[in-house]
């Protein structure tokens, strides 16, 4: 996997939102939604981005697709930095990168029938004429497991899971290389989540897709991802394969995040848990040094002053005192 050229390279991506005050809208501060994030996505893999609310994972996804203009940094897709392309060039380039949205109730235009929704991307990019595009829509809707008769329906006539299938079908219409899935299952019933995840997995095999899968749900992330990026307060904490993250996390935050994941086996629920104090600090005033030091159980003096850099080894981690790889005992280096 690492031998291939990355499909997408995110380098030092930053997205700051100005905080304005007063009549003249003076900028008084910045919300650092995404602060110096870098990672690679290889062709054919699923990269999971996990973190709690407000950690910047969705903003990262939207910045990759340039739905948000990055404050700084580059998004290199197949060798081109798409963060700096002109609007017109970017518009044509968008066919290679697609998105599946979180809320299937608001991601489909309520005024347009499913068939037209699916055919529109092909017509808009002058790939096919209307009739041919409709025929293609009829093929794709079956690929995502919906009957053709739904082509004549309006979005409000479909259930959440069905709509999300339409959202996925729409993202497939232009035959993209990369799909950013922004919490694609968290708005769905638990019973539907697995179906949609399976659909995404099947489609990946069938169309050779690459996913960036954003979620706060560890279950979905674990199920679908090959590698995982753990984010906290706009920064990358750790990057590793799913196996490594779940069995041998190196960042204290990852360990705490995993620990908060409910145990399915009731007999194992008695084990002691790591209790974290306090709330996530405001991204408008991130703590000095390591952003996690205010809540980290193993924080030392250096953590409050010096920002830990993401290590460059096979299992990158941004911590002055990463945990050693052993499942039960935690040994600090």
């Amino acid at each position, binding site marked *: 996997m690492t031998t291939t050229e990355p499909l997408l390279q995110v380098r030092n991506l930053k997205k700051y939102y100005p905080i304005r005050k007063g009549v003249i809208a003076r900028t008084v501060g910045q919300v650092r939604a995404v602060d110096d994030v870098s990672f690679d996505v290889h062709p054919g893999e699923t990269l999971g981005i996990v973190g709690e609310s407000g950690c910047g994972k969705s903003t990262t996804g939207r910045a990759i*697709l340039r*739905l948000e203009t990055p404050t700084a940094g580059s998004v290199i897709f197949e060798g081109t930095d798409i963060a700096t392309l002109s609007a017109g060039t970017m*518009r*044509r*380039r*968008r*066919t290679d*990168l*697609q*998105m599946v*949205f*979180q*809320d299937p*109730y*608001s*991601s*489909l*235009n*309520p*005024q*347009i029938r499913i068939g037209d929704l699916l055919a*529109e*991307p092909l017509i*808009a*990019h002058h790939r096919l004429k209307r009739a041919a595009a409709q025929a293609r829509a009829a093929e794709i809707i*079956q*690929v*995502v*497991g*919906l*009957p*053709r*008769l739904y082509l004549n*329906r*309006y*979005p*409000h*006539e*479909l*259930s*959440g*899971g*069905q709509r999300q299938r339409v*959202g996925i079908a*729409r993202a497939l219409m*232009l035959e993209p290389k990369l799909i950013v899935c922004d919490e694609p299952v968290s708005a769905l*019933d638990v*019973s*539907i989540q*697995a*179906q949609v995840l*399976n*659909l995404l997995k*099947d*489609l990946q095999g*069938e169309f050779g897709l690459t996913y960036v899968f954003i979620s706060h749900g560890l279950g979905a992330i674990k199920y679908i991802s090959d590698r995982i990026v753990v984010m906290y307060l706009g920064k990358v904490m750790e990057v590793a394969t799913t196996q490594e993250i779940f069995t041998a996390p190196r960042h204290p935050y990852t360990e705490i995040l995993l620990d908060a994941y409910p145990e399915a086996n009731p007999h194992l629920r008695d084990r002691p848990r790591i209790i974290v104090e306090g709330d996530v600090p405001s991204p408008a005033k991130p703590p000095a040094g390591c952003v996690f030091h205010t809540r980290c159980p193993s924080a030392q003096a250096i953590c409050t002053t010096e920002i830990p850099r993401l290590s460059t080894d096979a299992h990158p981690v941004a911590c002055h005192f990463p945990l050693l790889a052993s499942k039960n005992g935690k040994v600090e280096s």
Partner: protein
Amino acid sequence: MTLTEKPGTAGTADAVVPDSAAAALGRERSSAGFVVRRFLRHRMAVAGLVIVALMVLTAALAPLLAPHDPNQIFGSFEAAPSADHLLGTDAVGRDVLSRLIYGARVSMSVGVGAVAVYVLIGVLFGLLAGYYGRWVDSVIMRITDVFMSFPYFMVILILVSILGPSLLTIIVVIGFLAWPMIARLVRGSVLSIKQTDYVQAGVALGYSTPRILFRHILPNALSPIIVNATFGVAQAIILESGLSFLGMGVRPPAASWGNMLSEAQSITVLSSQPWIWIPPGLMILLAVLSINFVGDGLRDSLESRSYT
């Protein structure tokens, strides 16, 4: 319906819903049908719509319906209603009924014409201001502020007196002065709609800005525009009547409800010849009231709908 989805059925089409069940659940096939049904429940609105439809028909078929030429002068002036002149004749000896029927043309064309002009301008500016934001928004909104701080009727009077009173002038002047309301309305809708995921999806799919604006944003912002435009028609009719009454509107030989009313400026007409001024007054009242009821009905049926 979720029961019909089986896990891991991608690539196959075995999640088929029985057609009859789907049809039963999907009675509300289109949002249009839903709106029509809600509108029909509003009785005054339906009555209003019928009256407006009749008025439009009357205006269109005026030459067939009018018993006389509206400008033909008969020997008997200020004659009371009779078999020959159902609503009598006016001070110059013209048939009041025929003038009333032709007057509908003026009112309907001013109402629809002026509103068409200002909805077009307002929608365009509103879309641009709301979608592009930043300085485009600031500039357009400051222009609307300036327009809205004018004493509306005075400006119309002055403009009409400069341009010369005529039907076309009234349509154009009202059209160019009344757009800021619509622009603000559209801007507000666009601001919220452009944040929705389906517009973001449009951007992600690489749609052109006109496609996003006119196919994805405008249709979803249409309800308040339609309602506002309906009330606008009624307002334009009143404005035209007022201007014609003051002699700044449609010029006398041509018939308009407003200039027919102006004959009631004479006290003898007002006190002893009610057939000259009551019919046009009633028609204005009826037209405005009906249109306002239609607007009410549209507001109730369009703006409270939900798709989910």
